């Protein structure tokens, strides 16, 4: 316990840099394809190979994506976008510099809403978002004597999203990344897949005594390839820094590497070895001007974002926050829900079907919603069929829904009719079943009359059995009670 109190004296200050690989067809500064998984060095050209005498041309789609995320986060969008050279030597950067934005990032300010550790909303400020290009890939393991270079990725467009040091715990960092990933997926600018490297994260971490206004010396941990690993690396780094300070050491400016197997960070570069990028304006690429009219056009194209949808679902459709968050977690699911509720007014039931039977079917078959056989309007039809009293819930879930899966062209009503599942709401036929049920269990009738009201379920079950599940349960229960209490 004493050990724990030491850690409790400190708080962490965390800022994240996220690189989002953009879902453009072609590269940032040339027309090479960005297609993933091709043979090495096939998506290349004299520009991406860094040949002398070549000139970059700017992909306007990357600008559109930058404006999109900027507007979604409430950033101010810069009109005059200059580019700069960031110089460093590495074999997978053939030009010897990366064309990036230094002093004029496309977006500044803005924020992303996250949940803190207690689940309360928290605003995380954004410092900047800028456009740049990816490097190629180096392979150090395939050849014992050489490093092998694949330049397919060299020049693929990136947006770097830099947060303010507003995060305080590994969980907040985790939540922030989850939000960023959801946002880029909703905007359809990046697939957000950290394991495949299309979204990458570097974490700046420092610690300070609680209540202190000064920042401690920070370290930067690189190459974190899952949200879970960002959480683990930050947790380790916080503890390591506190232990070092408590042992009388000083934290120095270091670049750390995270080992996912051991869960530990280790020094990759010290301050003395730090890069000096010698930024200067890129003279080969004129500044790109973004007109206000263009920004407004992009604003009008923006899809509904999770926060807006959650507000709509909880306030207009009276769903619980839990349901609303569950539905909006995945954009495709949210779009499916939007389609169902165009055709039915029973929003709660639509949410239950989607997050219940449909989600289980997707999980069991390991498919995504776009591969789900039943169209949303047919699900709405099923909901309305139940609400109209023509079939009951259990017939809907256990008979009609499974039949719809194999006959997606048919409506719920057609299926229910063909299979003779339409509910029996005719009191005279239900009374017949009731009479049969009662005469079958005379001693239970006595017990019921003596006060064992739980026996109603037994009679209900019997009537359902006799009617092959078609008896209207509400009517049956009413009639049964009247009959038993005679």
């Amino acid at each position, binding site marked *: 316990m004493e050990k724990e109190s030491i850690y409790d004296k400190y708080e962490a200050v965390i800022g994240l840099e996220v690189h989002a690989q953009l879902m453009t067809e072609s590269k940032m500064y040339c*027309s090479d394809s960005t297609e993933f998984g091709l043979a090495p060095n096939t998506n290349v050209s004299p520009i991406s190979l860094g040949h002398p005498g070549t000139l970059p041309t700017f992909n306007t789609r990357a600008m559109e994506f930058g404006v999109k995320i900027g507007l979604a986060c409430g950033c101010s969008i810069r009109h005059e976008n200059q580019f700069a050279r960031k110089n460093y030597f590495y074999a997978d950067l053939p030009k010897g510099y990366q064309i990036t934005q230094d002093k004029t990032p496309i977006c500044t300010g803005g924020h992303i809403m996250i949940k803190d550790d207690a689940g309360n909303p928290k605003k995380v400020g954004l410092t900047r978002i800028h456009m740049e290009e990816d490097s190629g890939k180096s392979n150090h393991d395939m050849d014992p004597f050489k490093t092998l270079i694949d330049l397919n990725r060299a020049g693929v467009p990136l947006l770097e999203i830099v947060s303010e040091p507003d995060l305080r715990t590994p969980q907040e960092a985790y939540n922030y990344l989850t939000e960023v990933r959801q946002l880029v997926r909703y905007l359809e600018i990046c697939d957000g897949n950290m394991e495949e490297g299309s979204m990458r994260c570097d974490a700046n971490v420092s610690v300070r005594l609680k209540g202190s206004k000064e920042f401690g010396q920070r370290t930067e941990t690189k190459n974190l390839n899952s949200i879970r690993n960002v959480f683990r690396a930050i947790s380790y780094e916080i503890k390591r820094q506190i232990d070092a300070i408590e042992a009388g050491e000083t934290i120095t400016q270091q670049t750390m590497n995270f080992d996912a197997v051991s869960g530990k960070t280790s020094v990759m570069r010290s301050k003395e070895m730090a890069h000096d990028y010698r930024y200067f*304006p890129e*003279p080969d690429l004129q500044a790109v001007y973004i007109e206000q009219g263009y920004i407004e056009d992009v604003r009008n194209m923006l899809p509904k974002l999770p926060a807006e949808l959650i507000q709509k679902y909880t306030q207009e459709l009276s769903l619980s926050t839990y349901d609303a968050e569950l539905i909006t977690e995945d954009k495709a699911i949210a779009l499916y829900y939007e389609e169902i509720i165009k055709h039915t007014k029973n929003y709660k039931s639509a949410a239950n079907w989607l997050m219940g039977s449909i989600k289980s079917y997707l999980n069991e078959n390991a498919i995504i919603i776009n591969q789900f056989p039943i169209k949303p309007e047919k699900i709405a039809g099923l909901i309305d069929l139940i609400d109209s009293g023509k079939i009951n819930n259990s017939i809907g879930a256990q008979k009609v829904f499974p039949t719809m899966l194999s006959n997606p062209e048919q409506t719920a009503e057609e299926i229910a009719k063909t299979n003779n599942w339409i509910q029996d709401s005719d009191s005279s036929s239900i009374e017949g079943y009731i009479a049969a049920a009662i005469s079958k269990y005379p001693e239970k009738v006595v017990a019921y009359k003596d006060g064992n009201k739980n026996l109603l379920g037994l009679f209900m079950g019997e009537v359902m059995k006799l009617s092959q599940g078609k008896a209207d349960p509400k009517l049956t229960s009413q009639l049964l009670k009247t009959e038993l209490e005679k």
Partner: protein
Amino acid sequence: MSIDKSTVERIAELSKLKFEPSEQAEILNDMNRMLDFVEKLSEVDTEGVEPLIYLLDEKPSVRLDKVEQTTTQAEALKNAPDADTDYIKVPKVMKGR
């Protein structure tokens, strides 16, 4: 403005280059001469003059997001000093790997 030996060493390190001491002296001399040459520009009074980044007053070179693949893998690898059928080969850049 003149630079010293440590600056040359720093730049060599950033460029991942190694020099013999005799070469280093020569490079120091050359770099100082280059700086002296460029230093000439500072004789001009540029007070209040906007920095000039682009030499030509052209429209920015922008394009739509369309793929045009003009180079083949074989062509790309032909210019590399060392390559196999798929990859460009360079000296090991990571120690101990």
